[in-house]
Structure formats: C-alpha cells, structure tokens
C-alpha cells in the first residue's frame, strides 16, 4: 500500500512544483527553493514526519524532504544542547543527499566528457 501512496504523494508534490513553474512563471531553481522552504515549514509545525510514515519515499524523495531534514537535525540538537544546536545540528540528518551529490558530482566529472 505504501507503494501506491509513494506514487501519489510524490507525484502530487511534483504537480505543486509544476504549478509554481507554470502559473507563477518561476525558474526551476526558484521552484526548488520554494519547495525546500515549504518542507522546512511543514516540519516546523510537525506535519512532515507523519507524511513520511504515510507515504514513505513519496515524502523522502522530493526535495521538500531536504528542508524537513535540515529543521529536524537542527531541532534535535537544540533539544539536546540548547540554541547552539541550530548551527551544529543543521546537516546532521541531511548529510546523505549533499555528500552523495558532491561525491558523485566529482566522480561524474572525472568519468564523463561534457556534451557539445
């Protein structure tokens, strides 16, 4: 069942992105930034975690989960160590996406030739 919800919820988040691009005439970069902020706000009010339980990869694969993970890491550290946790905990949960992008970006640049 979680497969079906992953498809539907993930697809709907992409539709929101498409609407921002088409109706408000935003570039893909601006659209992704808006969605990241949206994910961060949703976790701030405690709604993103239930969405992950419900839709699995439908909630963790779209870029909104990046905002969710940033708030989550920062908040967990704040609860443990006080306000300095905002800085120290920020990338605690979300390191996977950024590390993978940097590592595979470098490997890609070594392996592949630019097109055109």
């Amino acid at each position, binding site marked *: 069942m979680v497969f079906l919800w992953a498809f539907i919820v993930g697809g709907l988040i992409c539709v929101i992105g498409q609407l921002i691009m088409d109706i408000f005439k935003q570039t893909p970069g601006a659209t992704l930034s808006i969605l990241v902020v949206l994910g961060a706000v949703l976790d701030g009010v405690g709604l993103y975690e239930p969405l992950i339980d419900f839709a699995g990869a439908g909630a963790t694969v779209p870029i909104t989960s990046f905002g969710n993970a940033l708030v989550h890491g920062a908040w967990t550290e704040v609860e443990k160590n006080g306000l300095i946790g905002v800085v120290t905990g920020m990338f605690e949960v979300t390191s996977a996406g950024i590390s993978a992008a940097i590592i595979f970006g470098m490997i890609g640049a070594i392996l592949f030739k*630019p097109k055109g």
Partner: protein
Amino acid sequence: MSKSYNDKVYNHSPKRPLLFNCLRAFFVGGSICLFGQGISFFYMYFFDFTEQTAGDPTVSTLIFLTMIVTGFGHYDKIAQFAGAGTAVPVTGFGNAVISAAIEHKSEGFVQGVGGNMFKLAGSVILFGVFSAFLITIIKTLLLELGVIG
C-alpha cells in the same frame, strides 16, 4: 513601455498546456518516488533500516543513478518531457550538481568543477539552511515563552 513589451512577449510566447504539464509531472515524479520506495524496501529488507532511516541510503542511491543518466546525457531529454517531474525529486538536485560539475570540467578541476558545482543547486541549500535556521529559532522562542507545548 516595459509593460507593453512584456504583454507583447506574453502574447507571442507559446501557451504552456498546464493540465498536460501537470499530468506528465505527476506520472514521471510519481514513478521516481515509486522507484525510490522500491530502493527503500531493499534497504529495509536486506539491511537494518526502518521506514524513517531508509530515506538516506535511498537518496544516495538515486543520486548515484542520476550520475549515470546525467553522464550519458539522457537526463535533459527526460527533463524536457517531464518538467517538474524530474526537477522536484532529489534526482533533480543531483542532476543540477552533477551536470554543472561535468559541464565545467574543461575549465579545470579547481576553477571549473569546484567553482561551479553548486552554481544551480546552491540556492536550494542557501534557502533551505536559512529557513531551517529561522524556523528552529522561532520554534525555540515559542517554546521558551510557553506559547507551544
């Protein structure tokens, strides 16, 4: 003058078929998430990951696959068809980093790859981190003041 110019550009630019774009974004984006759910299941079944923690290895695997698709030059073709369907999933973030890295390889690894890797994806990190900073501060203040429990 600039307003009438914008109107002219608007009138002459091709109309974007909104419903059709949304359908394509829905099916391609949904399929990527469905595929991601399959990877999550793989990690939960064969390794000790839970529904909550399987997100990290799934995202890493998807970005690895993005590297291969981007490297062979296919990601742009899919993106042209799918619009936000390929931009919004984390593969779009990976594609932005990896394609910038490959594209600027000719300028060298320090100036080119290092300097341009986050040219497109940097704003996502900037606004993500800064909004997370503000939200956490606000939440802490509200908690201190006893507004939320």
